[in-house]
């Protein structure tokens, strides 16, 4: 892809990035940040390409380190965001009972 097309894509992506999050409520700031954080873990694709082209063992080692780090970013990011959002999910029907509160509290301490 030539430089001009890349520039076009980049500029358009900036505006899309601004637009999609412009009206987010402060309640969702944390999950949104965490989700965006997971998305940049897609550097994994770059790390895989570099590792796949590595001929020298030293270069391969560094590239594999990049793969490990990128995977941690990508997988961990999506999993932790999902956990965060699970807390929001279904809380309308969540019945607050003393027993549930105590059990959850005990679980928290047991960890």
């Amino acid at each position, binding site marked *: *892809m030539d430089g001009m097309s*890349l520039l076009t*894509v*980049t500029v358009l*992506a*900036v505006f899309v*990035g*601004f637009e*999609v*999050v412009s009206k987010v*409520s*402060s309640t*969702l*700031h*944390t*999950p*949104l*940040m*965490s*989700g*965006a*954080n*997971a*998305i*940049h*873990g*897609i*550097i*994994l*694709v*770059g*790390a*895989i390409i*570099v*590792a*796949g082209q590595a001929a020298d063992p030293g270069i*391969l080692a560094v590239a*594999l380190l*990049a793969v490990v*780090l*990128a*995977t*941690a*970013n*990508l997988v*961990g990011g*999506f999993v*932790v*965001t*999902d*956990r*965060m959002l699970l*807390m*929001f999910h279904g*809380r*309308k029907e969540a019945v607050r*009972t003393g027993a549930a*509160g105590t059990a*959850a509290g005990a679980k*928290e301490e047991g960890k």
Partner: protein
Amino acid sequence: MSLLDPVWTSLLYLAAAVFFILALRGLSSPRTARRGNLIGAFGALLAVVTVFLSARLENIPWIVGAIAVGTAVAAPVARRVKMTQMPQLVALFNGVGGGAAALVALLELGHNEDPWVRLAIVFTLLVGAVSFAGSGVTFAKLQELMTTRPVVFPGLPVVMAAVLLAAVGTAVAVVLTGSLALAVLLMVLGLVAGALLVLPVGGADVPIVISLLNAFTGLAVAASGVVLGNVLLVVAGTLVGASGTILTRAMAAAMGRSVAGILFGAFKGGSTAGSTAVSERPVRCSSAEDVAVLLGYAQRVIIVPGYGLAVAQGQHTAAELALALESRGIVVDFAIHPVAGRMPGHMNVLLAEANVPYESLKEMGEINPEFRTADVALVVGANDVVNPAAKTSSGSPIYGMPILEVSDARQVIFLKRSMRPGFAGIENELLYEPQTSLLFGDAKDSLAKVLGAVKAL
């Protein structure tokens, strides 16, 4: 192996990019947030499968092994982390992403002669390294491996300027010569700059810095996409960079701060430095029993949870106390300041985890008029978000930040660890008002004592 021709590869990458956009849009609304995140994860999976099917790759067993290792490390941690420790985990994941981008750029240096591509390489190296080290320091601060107070030393601005100048000089040299040794030096300078950038930031401002570094990593990933000629990386990285910038500004606005003020305030020895001075003025101290009586015979109680509650992991006890009060026929609500907890929205997550129903969580705009009708405002481990100085004293660092109007309630009870001012380091006049009483101690212990006393009423 190369099962997919370039057209199919491009189409699949395009599809992944669209999934990322849909993911961000989904995450912006409570109803669609979880689905949005899953759409993003699906896009990522699609992209990874595509790269395996399209690029000519050697070392595939090694790569798959490395992915397995990364997953085996990150997934269990992400699954088990306590919700109170979640912000530092996000910081950590962000840092390793930045580190990965920097390593990719470093390895690509050898194959690229084009000065524009080399420019993208040095940008990725520098920004990725800044993000990696900055996130590392952020993690250490939030995990309390080091002080959460701003770390400043004399001459810090000079050192920072020198490091940045050296980095720019080295970057130019790398573009001109393509020297690997200089590129490594540039990464090291980036690491130092990242650490120096975050060290002077105070604990309360750290979440904004996480968001900023998140945007930085996005930009590094976008630049690495330019290096590799991979449109998906360009689009995904730019999306995160742009949305992260907006998010950082929104967070800063909710706290009444400016991003530049947070980053450079401490350099100037200014606002975020804070004080630990303890005032000698008299306050009304209370016992758990007194607090229980005030709460137990009220009709309307508003609980204001803050950072202290999150740190003490007292959210379950707070939920139980609310339940005990409700069983006495008292109307109880939680007033959530936009930046309560350690990150904007963090308190909602913590209280949702403790099974506090959604209807009891009231946002600031909704609850502020109701303090007038409240008998008791119970402030648990919050300080700056209820400090009237934000409205009255124009010289105060938090001036202009919207606050919860707890002073309108007939009685105000603070559960505090000590008289030490909050993170912004400003005295709270409300503590000395006649309608205010204080109960000192760890938020969770105090809540448990009050809960016991309420049950004994």
